[in-house]
């Protein structure tokens, strides 16, 4: 029984990792850009929510609604004025610029908020659990997982049912021909990053409620996000959820055997999948 509960906890944890990963997957799918500062942006969003909670006395769930449009604008501007300039044939430029951004961001947060561990205020709701059959599941992990699923459903709807989604797919296929349709690739990319940062903010909410955070934990989040994307297969959002779940389950199983092995187990699962299926479990056909 304890194993079933461990696995379920792992699945729910996978929801958090899928939230970390969705933004990364979206941006990579549209413009082949991997933002090495992605994890630090998650942490930045967590601090933003914290500031709103502390200064305005809002509940974190309200604060996140305020933070989301702010992060959209930040993401839009970041892509439009900085990251768009790195796109092109040179592979070094986006990597090195986003790496520099990651270091700069971490240290800006250190200066602004010190290295102290922080946490978003929890209340009885967030620490409660609900009984489902013989199992007892935390409300927060459940909510996190459900949010991850909703985000992915929402993104799929956006991609396949809206005009903006058509524009995303067209630009991702062929940016030059897309411009012949009246699409401005630069703005499309900016919107994509804006949306990615909105998802990042949702992820940050759950991160901050669930555990402590400080300016240095960004890179580890990036690694989990990245592993989930690779396991799932580049270009597949549902694959990213599966990838997150696999990492989550591997971590909780590893932790159940020996708490020191939690993170290592996740990495090992990743390496195994990489060995057996280098393109991931559900790779996009035309890449």
């Amino acid at each position, binding site marked *: 029984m304890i194993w079933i509960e461990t696995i379920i906890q792992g699945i729910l944890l996978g929801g958090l990792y899928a939230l970390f990963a969705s933004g990364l997957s979206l941006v990579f799918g549209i413009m082949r850009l991997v933002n090495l500062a992605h994890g630090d942006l998650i942490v930045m969003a967590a601090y933003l929510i914290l500031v709103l909670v502390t200064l305005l006395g809002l509940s974190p769930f309200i604060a996140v609604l305020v933070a989301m449009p702010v992060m959209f604008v930040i993401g839009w501007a970041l892509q439009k004025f900085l990251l768009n300039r790195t796109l092109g044939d040179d592979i070094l430029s986006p990597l090195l610029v986003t790496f520099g951004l990651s270091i700069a961001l971490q240290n800006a947060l250190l200066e602004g908020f010190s290295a102290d561990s922080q946490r978003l205020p929890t209340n009885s709701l967030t620490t409660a659990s609900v009984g489902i059959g013989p199992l007892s599941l935390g409300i927060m992990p459940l909510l996190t997982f459900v949010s991850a699923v909703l985000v992915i459903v929402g993104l799929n709807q956006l991609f396949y049912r809206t005009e903006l989604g*058509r524009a995303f797919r067209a630009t*991702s*296929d062929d940016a*030059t*021909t*897309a411009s*012949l*349709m*009246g699409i*401005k690739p630069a703005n499309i990319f900016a919107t994509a990053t804006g949306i990615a940062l909105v998802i990042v903010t949702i992820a940050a909410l759950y991160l901050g409620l669930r555990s402590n955070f400080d300016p240095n934990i960004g890179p580890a989040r990036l690694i989990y996000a990245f592993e989930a994307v690779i396991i799932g297969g580049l270009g597949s959002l549902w694959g990213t959820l599966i990838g997150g779940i696999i990492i989550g389950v591997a971590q909780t199983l590893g932790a159940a055997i020996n708490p020191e092995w939690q993170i290592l187990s996740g990495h090992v699962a990743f390496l195994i999948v990489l060995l057996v299926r280098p393109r991931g479990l559900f790779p996009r056909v035309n890449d």
Partner: protein
Amino acid sequence: MALLQTHSLVAHYGDFQALFGVDIELAEAETIAIIGANGAGKTTLMRSIAGVLRNEAAAVSYENKPIGSLSADQIMSQGIAMVPEGRKLFPSLSVEENLLIGAYGRKISGHWSLATVYDLFPILGERRHNPGTALSGGQQQMVAIGRALMSNPRILLCDEISLGLAPIVIKDIYKAITQIKAAGASMIVVEQDISQAMAVAERVYCLMEGRVTLSGTPDTLSRDDIHNAYFGAGY
């Protein structure tokens, strides 16, 4: 007044110069053809007009307004739509989505809509939900043309629409072109296939190595004139 004009248009790819001062003119409801051998600069000319290749503002004028330095999306929204060389359909979009995206930057009601495009090319209506690239070459060309029409453009640029297609398919495509003409479009048709181009156009320009070597109406140009202009005298 000419609808579209180029004024000593030049174009470079890095160090390589592709166009050396090209002057062409298109009048309202007119169809002109640009012919020439491979590498003559025809596609470069089209891309310059469409804004894919940027230029001096005054190099291209549209309704007497300088548009040479505008970007492709800006030019498209002004009403100049291109059917690109090689068709360039979006693999991630279905046939219908490819058509719909054609109107992204310019939503103007006019003769052309999904319904009328499906009338023009009935086979596309049958295949509307297939991925754009799962069609035959000729059908993909129809999608590409339909996609450009969806923005109800004032000028349609057709870049080598017969390329790689069987003769019978080319006939069908050009039958559609005549119907598009009949609906009042102004067109620039780039072709390596001289006969089709001459049949559909009121005036013809011939390009060789980035320069206009010949221009006139189809009936005033002899085969020898064209041969020389196409390949250069002495071949």
